[in-house]
């Protein structure tokens, strides 16, 4: 972690990177890979040659806990001020399951970075929801996109893997393997071993 002892004032920024493998802007459009990068910082920053769009107050990320042992955790990323005509990009793209990385950076007041960027959260988007904010006076609407994210440990805790001794399970991994096909029929079968 960056040593902040010698600084009387610092500012921080959270940098979010979401990699969406199947992204499109219309319901019938072709999918393409799209990486969304944005931050709570007040200026564009480049991390590993990738530029992060400053969203400032339009981006809110809930707090996360830091523990000695790796534990399951989840956070919520809220993007506000989304114009209505941009909602289609969210609805028609496959956002669920997309990996998300959040790094934190420390900066002096003049913008000089202190130390390196530090990992805050690594996981994937578990679900999302959209909330509409309608302004009656101006008769315009903007939207909130709420991304619910699970960290990797949480995802692993929910994962079930392995195979069972039945044909369905075996064929999930090896579709032409018939070696487990007789297991159900063999249940409670009797053999007259040694009978004349």
């Amino acid at each position: 972690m960056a040593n902040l002892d010698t600084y009387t004032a610092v500012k921080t920024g959270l940098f979010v990177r979401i990699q969406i493998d199947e992204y499109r802007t219309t319901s019938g459009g072709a999918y393409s890979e799209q990486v969304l990068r944005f931050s709570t910082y007040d200026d564009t920053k480049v991390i590993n040659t990738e530029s992060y769009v400053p969203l400032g107050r339009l981006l809110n990320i809930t707090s996360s806990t830091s523990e000695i042992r790796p534990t399951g955790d989840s956070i919520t990323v809220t993007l506000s001020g989304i114009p209505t005509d941009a909602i289609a990009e969210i609805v028609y793209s496959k956002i669920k399951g997309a990996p998300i990385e959040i790094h934190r950076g420390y900066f002096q007041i003049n913008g000089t970075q202190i130390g390196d960027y530090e990992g805050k959260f690594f996981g994937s988007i578990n679900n999302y929801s959209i909330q509409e904010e309608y302004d009656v006076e101006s008769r315009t609407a903007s939207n909130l996109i709420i991304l619910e994210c699970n960290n990797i440990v949480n995802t692993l805790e929910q994962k079930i893997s392995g195979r069972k001794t039945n044909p369905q399970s075996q064929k999930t991994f090896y579709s032409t393997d018939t070696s487990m096909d007789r297991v159900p029929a063999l249940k409670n079968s009797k053999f007259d071993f040694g009978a004349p």
Partner: protein
Amino acid sequence: MSFIDKIGSFASSAFNFLKGDGIANNLARTALIGLALNKLQKSTNKDNETVDPGTEVTIDPDTQYSVPVLYGSAFIDGKITDAKMDANNTTLWVCYTLCEKTGNLIDGSASAISFNEIYIDNFRLSLNDTGYTVDSIFDDDGNSGTVWANLIEVYPFSGGSTSPVSFTTEAAGNTANAYDLMPHWTSTDTMNDLVFCIVKYKYNKKQKLTTIGQNVKFKLTNTMSQPGDVLNDYLQNTRYGAGVPAAEIDLV
């Protein structure tokens, strides 16, 4: 006339009576034939009672059994996933599925699971020169016997039907594919990435092999035993592990 002469005279008159043509003579002959048949039938039934009726063996495999993953060295129970008896009811083939075949070590070399020992009903089996036929058994106290000699054959496989292996205690072993051993298997019975063992039981009442083993255990050793290798394999494996991409794991 002595008493012997009297007995001889009675026997002669009785014989002459049976040879006669009268009703009484016929009845007497019929009664004697019936008595003889009765004796013969009783004798036949007695013979039938000594025929061995065999043993009714019930096999109940578990369709919800999760195939385990084995690292290092351990004893493991076999779970029956197939069985077949030959036409004359004296040979029973049983397939015991043991565990998953594991992936590569961090250095890139393939892991290997070897068979060290096999126990049937708490008796350790010793094999003859073939490497798969039992010649003696040992109990926990080291006492040996040859009661199951040549009645049990064990064919271990590590990784699939085309991967026969030998017990580490034996110089030789089976080299045939599993589907060439199990009577009803074909080349599509591949048992992909599974460690398993086929056991052939030959019925013999005199040598007290009248059923299959109720408690079959195997001692296996996986060359993958170091914590780093194990954790890496369990994280990456898409079949039984977490399926984490290699790019997301820093091995340095």
